[in-house]
């Protein structure tokens, strides 16, 4: 179980919002961090603390395949994202970077920014005394997630530490 403070965003949070093209070519994700979510909420990246979670509506991460998007969210220290649904490329990219994504249909409509959630991975999320059931990921994805991302999974496969 882990506890996380909620930052709430809307539906269709696209990859240009998560990280605009202007900053994509920065050599390190550290340099990209301040610009995360900047078209929508320029101050958000500075406010997010390690361990916080993002709660959003439908189609989180829609748009481009830019993997800098989940990487920068992970680098901000976000523990997980809880959304009604995800765009598929973002979903794969997040898992490949070891960023936990949870699908939950009801939570978004019933919580407020600043609320604190308790996450029981693969079981439920508790917020304001209410429980929201969550599903577990398919095995092949869990493997990647548990290895700490696809790079580490591949290193293992290639006999490296």
């Amino acid at each position, binding site marked *: 179980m882990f506890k996380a403070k909620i930052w709430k965003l809307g539906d269709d949070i696209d990859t240009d919002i998560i990280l605009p093209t202007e900053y994509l070519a920065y050599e390190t994700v550290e340099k990209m961090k301040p610009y995360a979510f900047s*078209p929508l909420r320029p101050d958000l990246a500075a406010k997010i603390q390690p361990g916080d979670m993002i709660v959003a509506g439908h*189609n989180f991460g829609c748009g481009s395949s830019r993997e800098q998007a989940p990487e920068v969210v992970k680098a901000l220290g976000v523990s997980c994202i809880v959304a009604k649904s995800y765009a598929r490329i973002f979903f794969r990219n997040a898992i*490949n970077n070891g960023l936990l994504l949870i699908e939950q249909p009801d939570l978004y409509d019933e919580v407020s920014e600043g609320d604190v959630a308790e996450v029981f991975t693969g079981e439920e999320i508790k917020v304001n005394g209410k429980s929201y059931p969550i599903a577990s990921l398919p095995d092949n994805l869990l493997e990647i997630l548990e290895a700490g991302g696809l790079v580490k999974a*591949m290193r293992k496969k290639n*006999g490296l530490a």
Partner: protein
Amino acid sequence: MGHTLVEKIIGNKVGHEVKPGDIVTVPVDWCMIDDIMVPFAVQKFQEMGFAKVAKPDSVVLIYDHFLPATQVDDTRHFRVGDEFAEKYGIKNIHRTDGICHQLMTEAGYVKPGDIAFGTDSHTVTYGCVGAFATGIGYTEMAGILGTGELWVRVPESIKVEINGKLPKNVMSKDVILRIIGDLTASGATYQSIEFTGSTIDEMSIASRMTMSNMAVEAGAKCGLFTPDEKTCEYCNIPFDDSVKALNADEDAVYSKVLKYDAKDFVPVLACPSLVDNIHPVAEAKGTKVDQVFLGSCTNGRLEDLQTAAAILKGKHVAPFVKMIVTPASRKIYRQALSDGTLQTLSDAGCIITTPGCGLCCGRGGGILSDDEVVVATNNRNFLGRMGTSKVKIYLASPATAAATAIAGTITEA
């Protein structure tokens, strides 16, 4: 039970029947890596510890987002790509030839029935020739470089059937925008969209590309067209039994079927700032614009330029309005040179840039500032995509774009 087109393509490659929901590992025919993602893919590849690239001839590096370079670090991406190619024996590199998604079929790589992955979401474009193609992140691309394969979940399919003749001023862009509006931006998430019907049969490959290109804007994993004689001519291959077999069975099962009568389509816009915010052009008529953009992997092809030129011929872009034209590839630029299209567009006052992603990727080519309005033929109108978050982006067909440039306000062709 019958199979959809995507089930057949994947089934052929893995050597057994597949059904939606199956997770299978597929061999990869083509890996496309664009310039933005090259250094990241290379870094992940190295971190993964691979000694060699599994199938160097399947890899295509294309520099297009950063051409012409606008920032001092841009050319680093070319250098990293060149060094990687040299070290691992990758011979397919396009350094200044145009947009990746145009080149992957135009230059003869992707053929019907192939499986292709690219580090850009609009990789779905190659569905125009009946290939299973989709966008992935650079970490997965690094994995494919090393292994030559990738796992996929076999998608459910949505069938979109359109029959009849489209009205004169309606282009395939209007059709796909309307479909996205009906499906919503997440309506096809994880799924394959199959386009069929007599209207589709009549369409050029270029028009089909516009539609497969934008399938991802409804969240789709791929947007497929059944390969036909036109496809084979475009791909320079015989229309033989192996191609004819790439056809959904009559009893294939779809999660959803959308049917349209072609005559019901009207010119539409995706209004700010979501691709599924679709309205007839007529509803926004009169909205003042500052700039018009004709180009991108969605609508930067010869027929798009020709359509705009026919409307602009003998006329001029409105005063204080810019119309920027960015042909999708070197080949298209040259074709438009030789048939007089570029001359007509230049005479009308268009600014014709070198082929590349241009404005669509937001790194140059006509960035806008607060409170400006742009009508653009590309695929995304997200907040901040072409400048500040106060820029209003309307997506439209080349015909609507050209007519709007002349009027200086949004208008139908």
